[in-house]
């Protein structure tokens, strides 16, 4: 089960870094955070799971969306 999750996390990471549209990358990153939070619950680490979900997916997504709103969505590479 964890191997499957890790494959999905790896795929999301590649997509986040390769996609041209930064908003898609942000969505991929917050999905990555949610999956790693799920993985922490499987690995018996509830504290870290709540932190990763609340802080990792929650706050950093807000900050990323704010940053993209104030700059540009399209990225050259």
């Amino acid at each position, binding site marked *: 089960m964890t191997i499957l999750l890790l494959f999905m996390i790896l795929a999301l990471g590649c997509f986040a870094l390769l996609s041209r549209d930064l908003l898609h990358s942000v969505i991929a990153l917050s999905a990555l955070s949610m999956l790693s939070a799920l993985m922490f619950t499987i690995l018996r680490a*509830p*504290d870290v*799971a*709540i*932190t990763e979900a*609340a802080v990792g997916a*929650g*706050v950093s997504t*807000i900050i990323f969306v704010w940053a993209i*709103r104030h700059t540009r969505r399209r990225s050259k590479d």
Partner: protein
Amino acid sequence: MKRTLFIIKITFTLLVLALAIFPVILSSHPWPEASRDYLYEHALTDTGAVNTVSSIYLGYRAMDTLGETLVLLVSITGTMGILINLGRESEEEEAVSFSLAPEKRPTNAQRTHLLEVVSSKLGPVVLLFGFYVMLYGHISPGGGFQGGVIVASAIVFLALGTETQTKLTNTNVLGRIEALSFLVLIVAATSGVFFESGFFGNPIKSGSSLSANFIILLNIIIGLKVGTSIAVMCIAMMGGRRGH
């Protein structure tokens, strides 16, 4: 020529660092169990916390948590400093972000009815959950930081939902709560030194029924500090007029 040099440099860097961290990650040395066994017996009596993770990061290694709170404070102060300058420069071409200050809101179309109803109704529920996570940190999973962030998201929900600026979403009030909780945290940390139970020691004698309260106190203070500072940053990011 410059292109190939760039490629060589990057491949060399990646190769060396990959080789450097590969054995460390893949080492087959069995995971140490000494600290787990010690905590299994002593965590409850030493710190009074059922949740061993919070007994570590608020009891044995409380200095790390203090350092972490300092990182949070400094980075949010730095971000706010930069935000204020951004606000000043982009005064004319205000980016189309819905602004919370009543007098500055461009058009109401920006704030759909759905957003207002959902977030203003959802706010209190999330707030209650945030305080639960914060207060029960030493028993069930959760604690200062997680509770604080959930409270921050609840405050952002309320700020989105309500038309007028209530007391809870006024950045001035939030700033004051943050400052006070930081002061109480430092005083609580240094109180250990004067009760000769060491920096971040538990001033209340350990073993007595009260010792768990020190962890609850720390949880509440850190929760308030984290909650209010992240809420202030999020409100400022959403273009809300900064109170002071």
